[in-house]
Each structure stands twice: as structure tokens, then as C-alpha cells.
């Protein structure tokens, strides 16, 4: 039987706990990137640190790492939620998982296509940013929906 390389079930809870706050913060950051920044994540070159000796490929003068932190946190949450086993992972779950993955790739491609046709210049950068996370997000939504539908079916036939 086909068994997929998945994380243990308890990572699912961890995934949701990371995903929900980071998704909220990520949306907030996207809505107003200038307003929403953590000050303690700002790097300001002082001119004499080891990063400023000119031997690096890039020299970093100033950067706020809020967006990097949010992006990495969001990815971690998405990956853990998407790739942790369900409580009863069996062949039907595997089937639903792969079906949901195919669905999310198709829908994502359609969304990217439409964005390419209808969205231009600066706003397209936002589309590309959202696209970094959208496949996994669509997958999770679709997979959870399919599992929910299956559970509903059981409840309906049982009653």
C-alpha cells in the first residue's frame, strides 16, 4: 500500500498553533507594511561590525526583519499542518490528501494566470508574495473540507 512520508500526528496541533497567529500577523503586515514592524527586529549597520568589513557578497545597511520572521513562521505553520498525519491516517486519507494536493495546484495555477492577465506593476509583487504560501494554504483548506465532508457523511448515515 502506498504510504506517504508524513510527520507524526501531534505536529498537526503544533502546526495550527503556529499557523493561526502568523497568518493573522502576515495579513496585517501585508495590509500596512510600514505601520506593522517589530522594532527589535531592525538591523542598522554601525559601520564596524563583522558584517561591514566588505568581504560579504552583500552589505546590509538597514533592514527590518519582521517580514522575514512572519514569512518563515507562516511557512513552518503551513508545512506542519499540511504534512502531519491525521489521527487515523489510512488509504482513504492518502487518496483525499493527493486529490486535495492536485486540486490546490490547479486552483493556484488558475489564480496565478488570472493575476498575470489582470494585475500589473506594484500590485503584482503582492500577488507573488501571496503565491509563496497559497498552494499550501489552499491544500489545507481543501483537505480539511474533504475530511469534514466525510465525517458529515458518517453522521448522516448513522442517524
Amino acid at each position, binding site marked *: *500500500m502506498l504510504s506517504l512520508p508524513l510527520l507524526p500526528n501531534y505536529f498537526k496541533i503544533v502546526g495550527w498553533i503556529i499557523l493561526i497567529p502568523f497568518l493573522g500577523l502576515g495579513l496585517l503586515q501585508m495590509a500596512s507594511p510600514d505601520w506593522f514592524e517589530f522594532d527589535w527586529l531592525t538591523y542598522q549597520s554601525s559601520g564596524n561590525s563583522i558584517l561591514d568589513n566588505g568581504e560579504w557578497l552583500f552589505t546590509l545597511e538597514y533592514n527590518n526583519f519582521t517580514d522575514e520572521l512572519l514569512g518563515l513562521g507562516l511557512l513552518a505553520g503551513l508545512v506542519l499542518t499540511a504534512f502531519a498525519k491525521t489521527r*487515523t491516517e*489510512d*488509504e*482513504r*486519507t492518502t*487518496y483525499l490528501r493527493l486529490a486535495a494536493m492536485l486540486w490546490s495546484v490547479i486552483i493556484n495555477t488558475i489564480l496565478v494566470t488570472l493575476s498575470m492577465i489582470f494585475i500589473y506593476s506594484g500590485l503584482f509583487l503582492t500577488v507573488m508574495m501571496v503565491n509563496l504560501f497559497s498552494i499550501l494554504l489552499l491544500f489545507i483548506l481543501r483537505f480539511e473540507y474533504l*475530511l469534514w465532508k*466525510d*465525517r458529515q*457523511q*458518517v453522521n448522516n*448515515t*448513522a442517524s
Partner: protein
Amino acid sequence: MKNLLKVERAIKNVTQADLAIHLGVSRQTINAIETGKYIPSTVLALKIARFFGKPVEMVFLLEETD
């Protein structure tokens, strides 16, 4: 593909949940098979047939359209 899972369960008087636990799958899977929404793998079909002590063709039947 048709199946007589529900009938066999009634004869043996086992619930979907009991069967699911015995086979190591979820209750939703048994339900999906019974309602014809999901075709089980050969391994699972054989396991189900073995549980009821019958050959697999007695539980799962091909249809005209298959």
C-alpha cells in the same frame, strides 16, 4: 463496483466502527466504501473479505460499467 459490505455487516452484526478498528482504518473509510464513494485497495478488500470469512468476489462485485 458494487459491494455487499452493509449486508455482510448486518449478518455478522458488527458496526462500522468495530469493523474499522479491526481493519485499522477510520470509520469514514468504511462508510465511504459502503456508500460506493471509495474503491478500496486490493489489500483492504482482501482484509475485509477475510474478516467475513468469504472470498472477495462475494463481498465486492463488478458492475456493467466497470
